[in-house]
């Protein structure tokens, strides 16, 4: 009797072990494997990112303090109006022209740059705050051209938005200019 039952019991036991122990554990291992893969992928990405960041930091550290300072002057966080006017005055003084009729106003017209170069897809005029300075200078044509070239080359970027003058008798003429200064918008 026992001899007849023992194979049956063995089979039942084997099936029980498989279905109640091995199979659930197999599913559990599959889940663990899935989690391990996810973690492994995350580790790999984190490692790549950290290496990339370290590369960027190395690049950042390769800039000298003077270069960083120049960059900050080119695109400041905030425009110092008074300092700008002092600088403009010094510039016009250096060129020997008279400087006056100054009007400073916050600019609210943002240039539409949609559809421009793809390399700037993440940046637009919206990312800048701007300040317009209108002023007049009195001097000769050559002085005005020199001044204009200096303004164009200025480290603190000044965009000449408009300019007008009328020729009158004599060498000295009045030139009216409007320049725009940019600073980074805090939201950028």
């Amino acid at each position, binding site marked *: 009797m026992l001899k007849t039952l023992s194979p049956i019991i063995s089979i039942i036991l084997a099936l029980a072990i498989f279905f109640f122990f091995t199979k659930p554990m197999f599913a559990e291992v599959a889940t663990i494997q899935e989690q391990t893969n996810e*973690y492994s992928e995350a580790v790999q990405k984190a490692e790549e990112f950290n290496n990339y960041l370290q590369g960027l930091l190395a690049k950042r550290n390769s800039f000298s303090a003077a270069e960083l300072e120049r*960059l900050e002057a080119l695109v400041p966080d905030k425009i110092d109006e008074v300092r700008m006017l002092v600088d403009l005055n010094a510039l016009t003084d250096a060129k020997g022209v008279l400087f006056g009729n100054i009007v400073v106003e916050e600019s609210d017209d943002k240039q539409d740059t949609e559809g421009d170069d793809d390399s700037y897809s993440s940046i637009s005029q919206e990312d800048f705050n701007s300040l317009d300075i209108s002023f007049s200078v009195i001097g000769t044509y050559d002085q005005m051209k020199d001044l204009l070239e200096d303004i164009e080359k200025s480290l603190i970027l000044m965009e000449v938005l408009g300019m007008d003058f*009328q020729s009158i008798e004599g060498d000295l003429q009045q030139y009216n200019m409007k320049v725009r200064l940019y600073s980074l918008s805090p939201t950028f």
Partner: protein
Amino acid sequence: MAETPRSSFIPKQTTTSVSSRPQKKRRFNILGFVATTLLIVSLCVAAGMYFYKEYKLKELAEEKIHLSEERDRFNDAEMASVQELSRRILAADYLIDNHLSPSKLFDTLELSTKESVQFNDFTFEQTPSREASISISGETDEFNAVALQELQFGDGNNIFENTIFSNITTQDVNTEGDDEGDGPEIEQVSEVVFTITGDINFSDLLYDGVAPAIVPDTVPEEDLFFSTTTANTATSSDGVFPSIEDGDLIENQ
């Protein structure tokens, strides 16, 4: 008839003696074998799976530790400083690449203004949609010069686009003539005044730190069927825009 004993090599009762011993017949129990094998395999797989699970758990724990280490390596402040630098560089690139150099306008005007033309009113404007335009008023003493100037601006070799010459009118002006001893003589001459409006090719006006290429006087006289006037570029005595000296031109080239 006497009976003769029969002899035979066949032993008597042999079958009885063999059959009398109990025969042990071994039967192979295939069901038992399969069942036992199944049980053993099942136990082995279960044990293997248990150890494999332990191994995988250990592997998962290691990956978690690695991730935690990578997280610890990450520094918020460093990230912020790199981001800040990146956006500043991007912004600087954008501004520089869109930076205009209006002084090029004057260089071009100096090179392309006819000798007998004098400009006396100049307006330059950048519109919000990245367009630049100019408006210039000029005067000359003959219509031919206006036509020549129009051809010079419209030949596509300079930075002006869509130039329109308008408001062309004549006006009489008094000028001082030769003094022949009895006081200055007043002469009345007729002048042609005109206005030029046009757009400026934005890309040509972009700042590149380089002086503009010299535009030669490209309008040949014979193109003007009504002109016999020599057309030259302006000199400093001709208008408000003084010309660049020859030496300067060579330097700029």
